[in-house]
């Protein structure tokens, strides 16, 4: 009976592996067939040399980096301050950081467009609105990662130690708190990076250049190039997750060690 259990375990795992890899294999093989007669990376070179790609891919990277910067600047001091000085604000802040889960992206962008496309708040065309929107989307991951990081260190003692050595708030934040939670910040940042790089809805409806809308356009107009772009997109996510595991490695080991 025990043995049959293991066989079933393998069965489900193999099914899972197939489900996971078959679409990627199909995409990859398809992407190699751009040149008639033999397999090659023509589709990839086509994508890389496409002027549209050269605008939209770096644009997405720019949105992602700006989003991460805004998120760090906004959320680290807030999470720190809530822990240290205003624990009464905790439940309100937590509720807000969970709200993006309740509002689907398309509903959210619907609200953004309708709210900010009439005076006095006519900023629907500003890239700033896209960054703000992405910061909101990244909030559940970013804020929580930062807050978890802060929970693991003794914020109060660190602050008091720094203060007694004459540090101001800026020094405390950037030279004491920041380095101590950098693993959490980085995990949140790479997850946000992966999410923004693959995000379609906000970029599309706020009419900003981005990678995912570009792939959508490729799907409509080309055959092999969207396959190459899909593989690139997947590789990006894989890289981000790999980095998160790598930098969080020690931490994760500790979590399992605690059981």
């Amino acid at each position, binding site marked *: 009976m025990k043995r049959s259990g293991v066989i079933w375990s393998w069965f489900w795992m193999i099914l899972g592996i197939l*489900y996971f890899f078959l679409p990627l294999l199909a995409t990859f093989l398809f992407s190699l067939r751009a040149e008639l007669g033999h397999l090659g990376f023509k589709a990839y070179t086509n994508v890389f040399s496409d002027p549209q790609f050269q605008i939209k891919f770096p644009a997405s990277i720019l949105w992602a980096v700006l989003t991460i910067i805004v998120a760090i600047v906004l959320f680290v001091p807030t999470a720190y301050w809530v822990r240290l000085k205003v624990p009464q604000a905790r439940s309100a802040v937590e509720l807000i950081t969970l709200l993006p889960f309740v509002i689907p992206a398309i509903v959210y962008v619907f609200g953004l467009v309708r709210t900010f496309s009439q005076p006095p708040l006519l900023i629907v065309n500003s890239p700033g609105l896209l960054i703000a929107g992405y910061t909101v989307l990244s909030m559940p991951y970013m804020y929580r990662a930062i807050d978890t990081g802060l929970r693991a260190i003794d914020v109060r003692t660190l602050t008091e130690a720094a203060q007694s050595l004459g540090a101001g708030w800026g020094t405390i934040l950037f030279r004491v708190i920041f380095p101590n939670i950098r693993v959490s910040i980085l995990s949140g940042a790479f997850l946000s990076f992966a999410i923004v790089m693959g995000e379609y809805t906000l970029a599309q409806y706020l009419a900003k250049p981005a990678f995912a809308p570009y792939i959508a356009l490729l799907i409509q107009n080309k055959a092999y190039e969207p396959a190459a772009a899909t593989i690139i*997109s997947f590789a990006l996510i894989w890289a981000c*997750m790999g980095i998160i595991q790598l930098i969080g490695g020690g931490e994760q080991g500790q979590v399992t060690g605690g059981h």
Partner: protein
Amino acid sequence: MSQTTLQQDAPKARPALPKFPLAWLGVMPFFLFAFLFLLYPSSTIVVRTFLDSKTGEFTFRNVLNLIQDPYVLGAYWLSIKISVVTALGGGIFGFLLAYSSIRGGLPRIMRSSLMTFSGVASNFAGIPLAFAFIALLSPTGMLTNWLKFTGINIYDYGFTLYKFWGLSVVYMYFQFPLMVLIIAPAIDGLRREWVEASENLGASTLQYWRYVAFPILLPSIMGSMILLFGNSFGAFATAVALTGGSSMNLATIVIGAQLRGDVLGDPGLGYAVAFGMVIVMTVVMTVYTILQRRAERWLK
């Protein structure tokens, strides 16, 4: 405890500043940001749901129109159907995978690999995901061709990638990994002593599951599946890329179309549709939170 004592100590060291309001100033940037870019735009949807789009007066007409409009109701129904199907399918498959890797007697590496894959796959959604399945299961896709080779043409059996079951198969790709990730801690919480105890008392495997493991896991499984429901209910990009936004009228696709141009012929109704989605998602998250709390009672 330590917080209150420290706060009581503080005035001795640094006397008589109006401490409370000043401390709140520190979180004002966050609240200001959240108000401007999250709460205010969301409240726009709520407020305009209850305003007449022409006269600007308070009205229930938009909500009444919504529950009488067969097109909109059909869209909600389709969204709910696909969310139920993929939450159940993805939930069951994800649970079996997670359980197999954690308690199935497999090598340890299977668990960590599964978690990594799940982290990647649950984030691999939207446009690229849609294309990956086009390459796999479209009429000329790889798997379609393979199956044709063995004499099975799935398109003869009524399967279409661009309709309900096709879209469900695609959604499952981000549903089951999410299930793996959120159910794993609950499976970890099943203590090995419980298996041993029930075996010592002469229980069969079936009885162990029926009377011990399943009742304990039930709130976690239900909660996770409800989260999967929400995950699929709000999905938009995948469906648009796969169906071009025409062959599947999901609630999210109706909102997307309404944003491009007033397809419903009634701006007020558009707000009501969006508001309805927020209501559904709020119910989903509330039930999830309640079930999660129940689950934690056992799984410490």
